[in-house]
């Protein structure tokens, strides 16, 4: 039988109990007294309370971490290493009994019957984080190489200098933050979420978490980021080409389902804009993961002629309230239940606004929106590029009140975005770009903008006021380009 007492220097209850503990040890009690404080503080405490024997130091808080008390003083009775009893704080009668169980005595005369202790140093949030990180490393849950940044270096600058940012400041990925981030998924940190181009980097849950920390994510965003990484890693999404292309597109993340709001995503006013940490940081976390794990760097592997602000990160949530005209995009595409949340990734540009403030009937609104959709890439380009239409609530209401389904709207937009071949042929209207004249035998023949109605993805988001929708132009689509992908966030929670 062995007794271990844990104390710290800045705890009045420890001050009060330490002389009794020391006297018991001097009388032969099988007791180790360990201090959670530093050497100097521990010596000063011993002198202050009048004991000659200075407590041992609990080096690296190893014993405190193992015994894990909430409060000190804590006296723990061990039998062959296994705990058989403990007293936290000053509880006179229980301490006497605990010492008796160890075949020893403690003189508690003059001490109060009950006095609460103070929080164990291991409960200090900063210390708890460091201990959790140490445990995660020891248990192999954290395996990333450690980058040591000098004490005089600014870690934000150091990360930028090492080419690990997107040009904006990042949150330094200290192990404590990464371990805390990993608490927000049930998945093993070493599970591989996907293999990312161009260099085939394995995106483990841990690596995604490191990048999510850098992007500024709060923990609840992690499962959404993981699902997005899974989705862009699938071969039909063609991420290699997307990140390398001269086109200005990047992965656009649409989050559909109740977890979006739980993670802090707001889908109403300014849904595609600034102000919402969860959407902004989720989009950025995906792009940082692609950059750092896959290795696609702007100006080197990424050859975008212009790029766009949306390539820093582009994520928004769907507004799936009672006013929504349809079920969520992910729900329709992947058959998710209403209580599930999914992400849909789309290779797209920055969004642009399409206004129609007068249409009150579905058909006239369709005609107007179709004209906006035809502008994608170039009105002259047909069939090779998809688009996403983000219906605003005041436009969505028109279709909801008319009882349209998503599929009916896609069909109508598809039909309304046809145009006579004669208007699209090279040279028409003095524009060199256009259909090869060899293909145009009948100038009146209607040529579709999109290959099939499903190639017009429809999401729903935005504030109550404004007769606007947003068009997000796609990149080369389908078999010869990128096909949108949907992944279930529930798989990553």
């Amino acid at each position, binding site marked *: 039988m062995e007794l271990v007492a844990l104390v710290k220097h800045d705890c009045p209850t420890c001050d009060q109990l330490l002389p009794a503990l020391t006297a018991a040890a001097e009388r032969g009690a099988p007791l180790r007294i360990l201090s959670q404080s530093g050497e100097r503080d521990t010596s000063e405490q011993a002198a202050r309370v009048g004991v000659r024997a200075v407590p041992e130091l609990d080096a690296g808080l190893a014993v405190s971490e193992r015994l894990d008390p909430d409060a000190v003083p804590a006296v723990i009775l061990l039998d062959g290493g296994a705990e058989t009893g403990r007293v936290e704080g000053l509880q006179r009668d229980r301490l006497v009994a605990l010492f008796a169980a160890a075949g020893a005595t403690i003189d508690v005369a003059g001490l109060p019957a009950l006095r609460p202790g103070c929080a164990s140093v291991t409960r200090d949030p900063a210390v708890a984080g460091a201990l959790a990180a140490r445990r995660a490393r020891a248990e192999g849950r954290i395996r*990333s190489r450690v980058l*040591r940044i*000098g004490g005089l*270096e600014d870690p934000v600058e150091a990360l930028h200098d090492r080419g690990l940012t997107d040009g904006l400041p990042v949150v330094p990925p200290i*192990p404590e933050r990464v371990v805390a981030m990993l608490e927000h998924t049930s998945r093993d940190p070493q599970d591989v979420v996907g293999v990312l181009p161009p260099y085939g980097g394995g995106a483990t849950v841990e*690596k995604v978490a490191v990048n999510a920390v*850098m992007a500024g994510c709060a923990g609840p965003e992690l499962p959404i980021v993981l699902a997005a990484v899974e989705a862009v890693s699938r071969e039909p999404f063609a991420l290699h080409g997307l990140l390398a292309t001269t086109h200005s597109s990047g992965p656009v993340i649409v989050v559909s389902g109740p977890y979006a709001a739980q993670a802090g995503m707001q889908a109403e006013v300014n849904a595609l804009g600034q102000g919402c940490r969860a959407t902004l940081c989720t989009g950025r976390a995906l792009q940082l993961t692609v950059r750092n794990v896959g290795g696609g760097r702007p100006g080197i592997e990424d050859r975008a002629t212009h790029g766009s602000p949306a390539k820093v990160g582009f994520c928004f949530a769907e507004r799936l309230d009672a006013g929504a005209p349809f079920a969520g995009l992910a729900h329709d595409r992947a058959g998710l239940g209403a209580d599930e949340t999914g992400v849909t990734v789309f290779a797209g540009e920055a969004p642009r606004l399409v206004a129609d403030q007068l249409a009150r009937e579905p058909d006239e609104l369709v005609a107007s929106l179709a004209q906006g959709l035809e502008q994608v890439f170039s009105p002259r380009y047909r069939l090779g590029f998809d688009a996403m239409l983000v219906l605003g609530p005041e436009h969505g209401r028109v279709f909801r009140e008319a009882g349209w389904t998503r599929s009916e709207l896609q069909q109508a937009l598809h039909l309304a975005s046809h145009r006579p071949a004669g208007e699209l042929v090279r040279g028409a209207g003095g524009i060199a770009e256009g259909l090869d004249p060899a293909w145009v035998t009948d100038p009146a023949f209607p040529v579709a903008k999109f290959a099939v109605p499903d190639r017009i993805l429809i999401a729903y988001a935005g504030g109550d006021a404004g007769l606007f929708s947003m068009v997000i132009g796609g990149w080369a689509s389908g078999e010869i380009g990128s096909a949108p992908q949907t992944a279930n966030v529930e798989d990553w929670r």
Partner: protein
Amino acid sequence: MDYLELLDPTAERDAVARPLAERGRPIRRLALLDIRKPRGDVFLDELEALLRAESLDVHRTAKPTFTKPAPADLRREIAESCDAVIEALAD
């Protein structure tokens, strides 16, 4: 603390060292790879004519689409049957 520990956000992959092909070898068969960007074929047609005028054996080949990396089988076929490859990159 005299340093701060950060976790490496990269995949920590080492660059694969690929030796250069032997220099000075005679090029008997040359692949012209069209990545399928518009008008890449126009450029390659011109190049093919020039190379054939030099009595080179030219092997015309193409990626299925410019948006995706060349399939492994295509890369292997070029490596096994040709001494060098010229890729037509863009529009």
